[in-house]
């Protein structure tokens, strides 16, 4: 009630007028009433009423916060957070070595960034994750939907369909091996059509469309509350050309990062971004570093770098608050399984293929 007039979210012109007229606290405004306010400042009665409604809403929100209710800030103890984190699901990638170094898979409510040279497999992993997020809970998944924002045009529907078919087949094998009721029930709704219909695809051609889409994303996620994964494939591409003003670019990227963090937390979804690599010329060597500059490195919580070593693809966990830095090899495969089915999935080289009986460690039944 004692809130200063200058801190209220009114339009600047109105604020300036109120301060010039000598109003100091919100209490004074509420006491004056709309008619008195309109006469004193010289605005219409409707405008005065609108301003008072804003003030009243702000004060009500403040009161709720001081009373300890849930406002825009959350208070909880570390124990509550621990319990929440332990029950939280991961989005598995079907490559157990990759899931291991990530600590179980791609985490919800966190931003994960995947950097890599062209052709190394970033889009493949994103398509895999968009399918894996939909795995029903009885198979160890989070049963969510996916939003795929594509800035480079590298999303191939046929490939996504192949990955989805493989995933369905994998779950069918598990169900056949264990013959449980809820498995068979879940499989009825888990099909190729349902997987593809729950991948919401946006094609953004430049950075303005990307910014606009991210502004609209909270509304979209409120309508589609089952979304658990937001993929932005190619966050670097629209920002890397035609930008003379680098400080504007940094500001827009920071704003984007903040909005994505809010989205990840409020809607309990994972945000996955892919970044490009750029060459940095140092004194002794030229090396590949993630694009978009140093300050962008702070945006993501977890950073994975995909690179080559001769003919082997490697994934390095570069930044993570909870896991150790490590590197694992991986392959992108396609091979035949059971006559006409092709299973295409990321698979750690050297480790045995995921057999139905020794499934992913997250499937607690096995």
């Amino acid at each position, binding site marked *: 009630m004692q809130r200063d007039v200058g801190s209220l*979210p009114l*339009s*600047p012109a*109105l604020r300036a007028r109120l301060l010039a007229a000598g109003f100091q606290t919100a209490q004074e405004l509420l006491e004056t009433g709309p008619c008195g306010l309109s006469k004193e400042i010289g605005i219409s009665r409707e405008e005065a009423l609108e301003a008072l409604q*804003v003030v009243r809403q702000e004060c009500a929100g403040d009161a709720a916060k001081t009373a300890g209710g849930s406002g825009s800030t959350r208070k909880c103890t570390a124990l509550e957070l621990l319990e929440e984190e332990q029950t939280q699901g991961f989005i598995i990638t079907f490559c157990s070595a990759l899931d291991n170094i990530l600590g179980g898979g791609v985490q919800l409510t966190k931003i994960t960034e995947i950097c890599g*040279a*062209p*052709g*190394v497999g970033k889009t*493949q992993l994103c398509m895999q994750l968009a399918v894996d997020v939909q795995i029903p809970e009885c198979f160890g998944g989070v049963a969510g939907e996916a939003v*795929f924002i594509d800035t*480079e*045009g*590298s999303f*191939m*529907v*046929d*490939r996504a*369909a192949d990955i989805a078919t493989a995933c369905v087949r994998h779950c069918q094998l598990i169900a056949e091996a264990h013959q449980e009721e809820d498995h068979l029930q879940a499989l009825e709704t888990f099909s190729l*059509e349902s*997987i*593809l*219909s*729950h*991948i*919401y*695809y*946006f094609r*953004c*051609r*430049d*950075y*303005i*469309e990307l*910014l*606009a*889409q991210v*502004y*609209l994303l909270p*509304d979209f996620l409120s309508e589609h509350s089952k979304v658990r994964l937001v993929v932005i494939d190619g966050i*670097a*591409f629209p920002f*890397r*050309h*035609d930008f003379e003003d680098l400080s*504007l670019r940094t*500001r827009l990227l920071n*704003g984007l990062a903040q909005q994505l963090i809010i989205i990840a937390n409020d809607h309990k979804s994972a945000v996955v971004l892919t970044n*490009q690599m*750029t060459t940095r010329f140092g004194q*002794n*060597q*030229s*090396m*590949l570093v993630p694009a978009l500059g140093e300050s962008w490195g702070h945006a993501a919580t977890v950073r994975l770098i995909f690179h*080559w*070593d*001769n003919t082997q693809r490697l994934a390095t966990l570069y930044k993570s608050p909870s896991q150790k830095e490590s590197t694992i090899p991986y392959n*992108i495969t*396609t091979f035949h399984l059971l006559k006409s089915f092709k299973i295409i999935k990321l698979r750690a080289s050297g480790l045995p293929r995921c057999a139905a009986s020794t499934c992913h460690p997250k499937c607690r039944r096995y």
Partner: protein
Amino acid sequence: MATKKLRRAKLSQELCERLSRYQITTCQDFLCLSLLELMKVTGESYRNVQKLLRKVSLACAPKMQTAYEMKVRRSINPSAAFLPTSLHSLDKVLHGGIPCGSLTELTSPPGCGKTQFCITMSVLATLPVSMGGLDGAVIYIDTESAFSAERLIEIAGNRFPTYFDSDEKLFCMTRSIHLYRELTCDSVLKRIKSLEEEIISKKIKLIIIDSVASVVRKEFDTKLQGNLAERSNFLARGASLLKYVAEEFSIPVILTNQITTSLSNGLAIPADLVSPAHDLSLSEVTGASGSGKKESACVTAALGNTWSHSVNTRLILQYHDLLTRQIVIAKSPVAPFSTFFYTVEKSGLVLQVIHS
């Protein structure tokens, strides 16, 4: 979309006039401002500014489609998703051929057959759908003056002798290949910008640019300061225009590139700079100064890292021995690494099977 004027974003007239006083006329200007700046400029409260942001975003944001809708649309017209190259093993691995709606790059040292491949693809695009073509016209942007109409007729006549049995059919085919000779970067960019209208008026189904690298490397010398950034800018702008056109009309775009040797002069090239499809056969050359410092070199596609990110599919042509060459799929969202051997004959490229 970014240059959309605000009055078409359904903002009120007086608001647009007020904003134009601050030089904010397009959606791009509006969305680049922070919330506080927007409040100052529009004179609205915090809540109203957020509502305005949402309105402007709605005007700019892309439409949503589910992956299922995309698949259904593709399955209605399966032949429109790829342009078969008539090299059967290559087509099988590529799930049909050169994909429509994305950029395909062809890289090779000189003389391997890039232009031959491009000429063959031009012939294929004019064939009717029943024979695996796209039944449309072709735009061929030639920067090296390497296109030869006689070779075009030779390939057409030898590859499809039963179809091109009369002169009439040959002339019909040649009439639908539109050749443009562009010799500078600016003219190439201008030509790319004019593509949208040409595609609609001439019913184009394939765009070929042969070659991007020659015109870019003529004009930009990356050792001079500032040229690297300008070159990347030009390439990125060209790439995004071509991608827009390719996706909008769902047609394939083929670009050709050159090979460059990147010498590092004593600096070690980290192994993750190049993918295994690049030829490392020139590595480990000792330095000319004789100081014993190793000067490793490797052969990569020209035009830099950023360009490599822009193209969706990359095919590399290389020499295998005196007569045979090989084609390597270096980057593709649907195909793994594969190698095929071929020779260049009268009828164009012909796949060979090498028994070791």
